[in-house]
């Protein structure tokens, strides 16, 4: 049986890198006594898939991982797995839902199409410009070009098509961005492009970023229909 686990990450543990979060859950699952499936061979590892990695320092209200369990002969599997994981977790990593995935569902990592973020400025590091106006101008552009540093050198990319939503309200940006493996956009890239556009410079470590949700596309390439990853499954 495949389970999709949604969790939050906040507080000091936001400094734990993606690989270490995976290690954390491998051990947590064992502490929780969940009968997770292993690969075979001399160094077996748990059958586990994480959705998009979260950068160090970011908090999140919508992280996902799929695990495969062999037996779970207790009523309310989802409730029980959630309760047990939270019992053995640390403050700052909190499981908020567990769902059983349909057999044909793609794994968490392959399913990621988009992610939403809330972005705030640290006190004292806000820009001088009026953001509502700057943003309105920015959204009118037909192309939002940035240069990306890649292994092969610099490359120009257009962010425009991948910014599905971008608003500024109550001192916070809300953004829904392409997070697919081909077109992943980071929130900081959007802010940098916006600042470049209105002649502002982004101060160092100025942003407080929370990932709110990760989405999958149940529509087509042309007609995108995004739903949160935990709406797959029951």
């Amino acid at each position, binding site marked *: 049986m495949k389970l999709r686990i949604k969790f939050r990450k906040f507080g000091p543990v936001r400094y734990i890198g993606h690989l*270490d979060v995976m290690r954390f859950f491998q051990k947590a699952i064992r502490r929780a006594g969940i009968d997770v499936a292993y690969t075979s061979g001399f160094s077996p590892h748990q059958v586990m898939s994480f959705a998009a990695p979260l950068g160090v320092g970011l908090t999140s209200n919508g992280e996902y991982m799929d695990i495969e369990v062999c037996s779970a002969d207790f009523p309310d599997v989802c409730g029980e797995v959630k309760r047990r994981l939270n019992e053995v977790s640390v*403050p700052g990593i909190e499981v908020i839902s567990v769902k059983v995935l349909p057999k044909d569902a793609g794994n968490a990592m392959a399913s990621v199409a988009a992610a939403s973020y809330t972005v*705030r400025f640290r006190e004292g*590091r806000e820009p001088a410009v009026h953001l509502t106006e700057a943003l309105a101008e920015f959204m009118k552009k037909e192309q939002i070009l940035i240069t990306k540093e890649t292994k092969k050198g610099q490359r120009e990319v257009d962010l425009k098509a991948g910014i599905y939503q971008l608003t500024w309200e109550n001192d916070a940006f809300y953004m829904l961005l392409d997070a697919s493996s081909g077109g992943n956009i980071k929130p900081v890239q959007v802010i940098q492009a916006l600042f470049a556009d209105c002649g502002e410079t982004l101060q160092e470590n100025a942003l407080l970023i929370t990932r709110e949700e990760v989405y999958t596309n149940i529509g087509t390439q042309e007609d995108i229909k995004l739903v949160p990853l935990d709406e797959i499954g029951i």
Partner: protein
Amino acid sequence: MKILKKDGGRIKGPGENAAANGMRNQCMEDRLALSDDILMKIEKPERYIGHEVNSVVKDKGKIKVRFAMCFPDVYEIGMSHLGIQILYDMFNSMEDVWCERVYSPWLDLDAVMREKKIPLFALESQDPVREFDFLGITIQYEMCYTNILQILDLSGIPLMALERGDDCPIVIGGGPCTYNPEPLADFFDLFYIGEGETRYRDLIDLYQECRSGGLKRREFLRRAAKLPGIYVPQFYETTYNEDGTIRSFSPVEDGIPAVVQKEIELNVTDTYYPMKPVVPFIKVTQDRVVLEIQRGCIRGCRFCQAGQLYRPVRERDVDTMKKYALEMLKNTGHEEISLSSLSSSDYSKLPELIDFLIEECSRQHVNISLPSLRIDAFSLDVMSKVQDVKKSSLTFAPEAGSQRLRNVINKGLTEEAILNGAALAFEGGWTRVKLYFMLGLPMETPEDIRGIAELSNKIAATFFDTVPKEKRTNGKVQIVVSTSFFVPKPFTPFQWAKQCTKEEFLEKAYLTRTSISDQLNQKSIKYNWHEADASVMEGVLARGDRRLGEVIRKVYEKGGFYDAWSEYYDNERWLKTMEECGLSVDFYTHRERPADEILPWDFIDCGVTKEFLLREWEKAKREETSENCKIKCQGCGASRFGCGICFEPRT
């Protein structure tokens, strides 16, 4: 909404409040000593944020004594140390004590802390170490001495014990290096000599008694000096002869004991053991459950300090070990378990324990790692069950290249045993062998060094003899020879021995290398050797006296620390500083000490007697071996503790 935080007078990083602002679920415990700006900039911020699984957080209002437990090296090393986990568990089992962990900040953070004047903090509460009652530092190797000064300095604690005020934590040293604490005498308020399980409660009670009686620091220390196992250096004085040797060492006050006897846990089964060890977020050196199956070693190799310090051997009850294994796996979620002891093959219930672990662990997908096993039919059988034969390697530690020199050092491993073990292993599919030797052992000749190459060659030949061509999976055998340079240590039969100079060491390494390349099978043999510089300085510190305190301090003040990391070790700086202080490297290393010389550590009684060590030293010179404790008692003196192997029937 704005959450304002009280933070112990620390300079606040810009934007730190904003970090909490707007982030849900921030609360008091989430306060970190380092600002977001710093944590985003340094390597591995996870080293400094605490919050690991099983780390202990207590209510400050409900405890009376705060203990900071420090391993003076980087987090990944310090977190892997079993001794600290045992003491952490012991202290935190005391209702009135809260014990927290402290490690050396890495160089990147060290620079930031100095620049921004951020005091060193403990991981759990993130509070400055300076506010604690005790700072306990475990001292595992000589080259961490400068890191101890880094810890004190960053904490804002005066380096010199005599300069500390009543509001400073009491700085305690423990661990194997305290068996010669003299080079560090200036920096510690007290040393705890021996195993930590026994005397800390008394010490803490005494501390509270003194505190409520309004007694000063020095009075507490005076009383502590009278507790068994406790050494308070400021109450002792050393005088020197003209030639630099010690004329006298004695207490400066009446009532201070002239001899300090090591503390020892008599019953190692019925004592503290961490059922819930802290589980780090980042991968540390020892990322597994560690089961200490016994303490001490029966073998008495003459170069080995641990083999003497932890006498007599005490085994832990096997049923208790099985129970612990399961419980610790459950509480940590680790995917690997390892047995810890100086010589696991000597544990009498090893087959029973391993059978049990193999069965449980395969069910639970847990790997078993078995260090320090003697290679024989039994261990090969076990190893083939728990590891991938193709990927793993066999380890032999003959330590010396010839039987003659192995007799000198009392290493009871024969060439026959090695070749038989290797043949068995090659038949079983192993193709990689690691060999460990020491260079610069007492009475070593070029013949012994060539013996290293010859033995390695014979092992390679054994492979070609035992494995027919068509069965050689990857066609060849891989032998890796590593040599370290011998450093004489206190409380070993070689404590009187002359250590080699750097030049001598390098010559020996060169001879090893050329001898290996003379061998028929040289293509199958790879040779690694350690750097010689640090081994010489390690030797100075290991057998040094109080005068070296000045050297350590000056080296630190010139910017030296992380000396245990070869990339940060600056030999010139040490040599120059020795010279500045008017001390000679050769005096400490390059001379044989006469039997009647007062050694800096003579005032410590570690269980084995000086007579026994001398006897062994003489036997070494006659190339005579001594049997191990299981076969025949050598009358080392440790039986007076009334426990362990000394009272078991011989086999």
